[in-house]
């Protein structure tokens, strides 16, 4: 009965979403206030209905109702309780439901926190979000219904994919989806602005906090995925340039360009068409990611069981949403005024360069990701594009990006002098160069890559520090967006230093060890003390006991495991990691090796600065949250928009 109620709620929510997507929009066109005022209650009702459907599915999971096909395929009576709940989004159908839940949550949030916006604008924004919801709800109802029944009912379920039975993966998809879906709010604001012709500073200010918070979620989601891959896949990698990772990186890159471009549009009234295009692109790339993951066009570790009908549906949906948005853009954007003038050297010009570099980087990643598909479609053969391409293309684009980041925060709006900018940054630049020359020797060895990485990381960190110190000397309250910006930039520098450190100084030993054997990576010695069998709730594992010695003292005991889940033939590696401030010690247990004495293949890694990657990501997220919470955004924007130099389009809809 409960699954049928959930199904019913889902159908009802699709009807409400359709109402939300049409009536308020028509009201905005025809100036009917009553129609427009339908938007908020409809958005809230839709959220309630989708939440109810989600709760129904969760309840089916928690009560082990294997008569529901999706539950039978993704859960098991032995599965720990927390994972039974997380299994709701462990497969294609449920994860789509989670996606729609988040979309309706964002829509409801816009409905609630938009009291300062004109009603017509709220109606347009919520309508666009409603239309997006209609698409996803139809997708679920026609091709991917999580409430389908299974007959006869199996005695037990097939269990959740062991790879997903991990705390990191429990929160990774929700965070990532919050980011993806959050980009739909920025998209809805952009489309609403194009529709109304109110493509002005007020529009930019309304979308900024939403975009920044979505960006923060996306950053966190990508970081979590990387962290998970690092400790769960058992070979110490943290970024693979897998098509699905790329699918999350592309909206992030464009989203980063967008939050900076929005700032220029708000402060100076410039870049309007470009900002709108970035907002459309960020959401389009989120949709493209969905298509790539769920249609089976590319091979990836993330790919869901694919079904051609699903691929066609998303492609048509993608074509409709993005095609109509870009048509609207081509129609409306030419009428947009250019806004304030800017000098060749100015904060605007640095931010424009930043945007362009980020978009070019996105293009490079997109090309690399889709290249195998394009070559295959042209009948030119089969190939795959690997990390060498991405590293070769991506890194050279990030170097100038990080370099202009610092002058971009220092330069004046409108017109700045290059000599002033660099005179102000002379100590920062000097210190970064000195550190880049000295630190590699302290860390072990000198290389061009490590020097460049350390220079860029220090340049960004010290540049932010200098700016903060200068600002603190001046009187006046400092806004959240100032702290947010510098915190996010500082997080970026920590991330860059982390990447440089681990890439330049990691030591990896793939060895064969018998009990009592040692392997040394100075100053640490790893000794395999013992191997034993252990039992988990739904798996059994072989567990190694590895003692880590420094100066002949045991400083840590690591217990890597090789797990065999009862439901799956594939063994899972649980690496054991000892994290310090400056390094990780990483041990993973491999297969037993044939021989006279029993021995095992082991991976023993010294990974310097890996904790900095996660710290950098967290600092960036914190910066995003602080910036989004700036009090300035919550003031009544109707009063402010009068004061801002915002130019409207000549022909309002």
């Amino acid at each position, binding site marked *: 009965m409960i699954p049928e109620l959930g199904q019913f709620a889902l159908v009802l929510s699709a009807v409400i979403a359709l109402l939300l997507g049409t009536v308020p929009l028509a009201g905005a066109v025809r100036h009917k206030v009553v129609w427009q005022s339908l938007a908020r209650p409809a958005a809230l009702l839709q959220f309630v209905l989708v939440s109810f459907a989600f709760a129904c599915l969760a309840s089916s999971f928690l009560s082990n109702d294997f008569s529901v096909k999706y539950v039978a395929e993704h859960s098991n009576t032995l599965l720990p309780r927390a994972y039974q709940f997380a299994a709701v989004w462990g497969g294609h159908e449920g994860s789509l439901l989670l996606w729609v839940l988040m979309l309706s949550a964002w829509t409801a949030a816009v409905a609630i926190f938009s009291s300062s916006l004109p009603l017509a604008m709220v109606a347009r924004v919520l309508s666009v979000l409603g239309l997006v919801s209609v698409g996803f709800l139809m997708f679920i109802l026609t091709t991917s219904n999580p409430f389908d029944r299974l007959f006869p009912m199996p005695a037990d379920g097939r269990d959740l994919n062991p790879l997903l039975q991990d705390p990191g993966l429990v929160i990774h998809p929700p965070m990532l989806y919050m980011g993806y879906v959050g980009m739909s709010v920025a998209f809805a604001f952009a489309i609403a602005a194009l529709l109304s012709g109110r493509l002005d500073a007020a529009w930019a200010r309304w979308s900024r906090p939403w975009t920044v918070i979505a960006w923060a979620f996306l950053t966190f989601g990508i970081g979590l995925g990387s962290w998970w891959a690092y400790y769960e896949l058992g070979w110490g990698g943290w970024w693979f340039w897998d098509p699905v990772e790329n699918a999350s990186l592309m909206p992030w890159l464009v989203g980063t360009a967008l939050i900076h471009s929005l700032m220029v549009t708000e402060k100076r009234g410039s870049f309007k*068409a470009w900002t709108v*295009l970035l907002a*459309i*692109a960020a959401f*389009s790339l989120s949709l493209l990611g969905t*298509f790539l993951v769920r*249609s*089976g*066009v*590319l*091979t990836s570790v993330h790919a869901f069981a694919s079904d*051609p009908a699903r*691929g*066609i549906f998303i*492609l048509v949906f*993608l*074509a409709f949403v*993005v*095609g109509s948005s*870009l*048509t609207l*853009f*081509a129609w409306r*954007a*030419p009428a947009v005024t250019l806004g304030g003038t800017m000098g060749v050297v100015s904060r605007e010009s640095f931010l424009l360069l930043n945007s362009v570099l980020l978009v070019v980087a996105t293009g490079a990643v997109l090309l690399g990701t*889709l290249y*195998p*598909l*394009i070559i*295959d*479609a042209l009948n030119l*053969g*089969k190939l795959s594009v690997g990390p060498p391409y991405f590293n070769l293309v991506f890194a050279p684009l990030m170097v100038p990006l990080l370099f202009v980041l610092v002058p971009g925060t220092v330069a004046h709006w409108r017109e700045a002098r290059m000599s002033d900018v660099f005179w102000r940054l002379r100590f920062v630049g000097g210190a970064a160069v000195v550190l880049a020359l000295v630190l590699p020797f302290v860390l072990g060895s000198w290389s061009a890559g490590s020097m460049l990485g350390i220079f860029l990381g220090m340049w960004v960190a010290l540049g932010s520090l200098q700016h903060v110190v200068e600002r603190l000397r001046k009187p006046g309250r400092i806004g959240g967006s100032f702290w947010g910006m510098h915190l996010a930039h500082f997080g970026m520098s920590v991330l860059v230093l982390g990447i440089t450190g681990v890439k330049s100084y990691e030591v990896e030993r793939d060895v064969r060890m018998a009990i009592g054997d040692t392997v040394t990576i100075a100053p640490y010695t790893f000794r395999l003390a013992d191997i034993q069998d252990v039992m988990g709730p739904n798996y059994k594992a*072989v567990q190694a006991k590895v003692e880590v010695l420094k100066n002949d003292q045991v400083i840590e005991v690591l217990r890597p495991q090789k797990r065999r889940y009862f439901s*799956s*033939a594939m*063994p899972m590696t649980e690496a054991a990691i000892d994290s310090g401030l400056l390094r990780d010690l990483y041990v993973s247990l491999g*297969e*037993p*090796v*044939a*021989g*006279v*004495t*029993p021995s095992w293949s082991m991976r023993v890694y010294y990974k310097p600065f890996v904790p900095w990657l996660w710290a950098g990501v967290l600092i960036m997220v914190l910066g995003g949250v602080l910036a989004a919470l700036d009090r300035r955004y919550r003031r009544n924007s109707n009063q402010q928009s009068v004061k801002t130099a915002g130019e409207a389009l000549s022909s309002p809809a």
Partner: protein
Amino acid sequence: MKKFLLPLVLFVTLVVFLGVGLKRDPHEIPSPLVGKPAPAFALPTLRGDKPFSPVDMKGQVWVLNVWATWCVACREEHPLLLQFSQTQRIPMVGLSYKELQGSEAANASLSEADKLQLARERSLKFLQKSGNPYQQSVMDLDGRVAIDYGVYGVPETYIIDKEGVIRYKRVGPVTPEVLKETILPLIQQLDKSA
């Protein structure tokens, strides 16, 4: 106006490629061995009679199916293989790939003969329970023959013609569509040619 249409044009191009891409299967990997003679080997059989070699099949079209009892996807395609063996007169040879895994394969206290015995018992038990689609089964315990054939993972299926040349390779389980649309027509065509 024109420059504002550019994003739309780029996007339409992308959609065309994605649409074509939908019809392709990225898992379909062209094998360099297709069109080449099937690599020779001599392996112990499941029954324990004289070692089997591809030369024994000369003059007839046959199917080589790589499998193992621990392979989940093999169980998935198993009913289809059974149906195939019951309705077609084309012989199918099963190549049992690394039946013993992990600690069993590495166990030094078991002799090679013991391991072969253990693998045979396990495979036989499975085939007796689930039905045997294979005219002949051979044991590739260390997986060396599979390396010669470029096996990516189990299951894999090869079609070999009367001259002993590999004509087709399927990576992953055989599906009813693949069987009906690709494998059966190819076999009929190969069978007719002299």
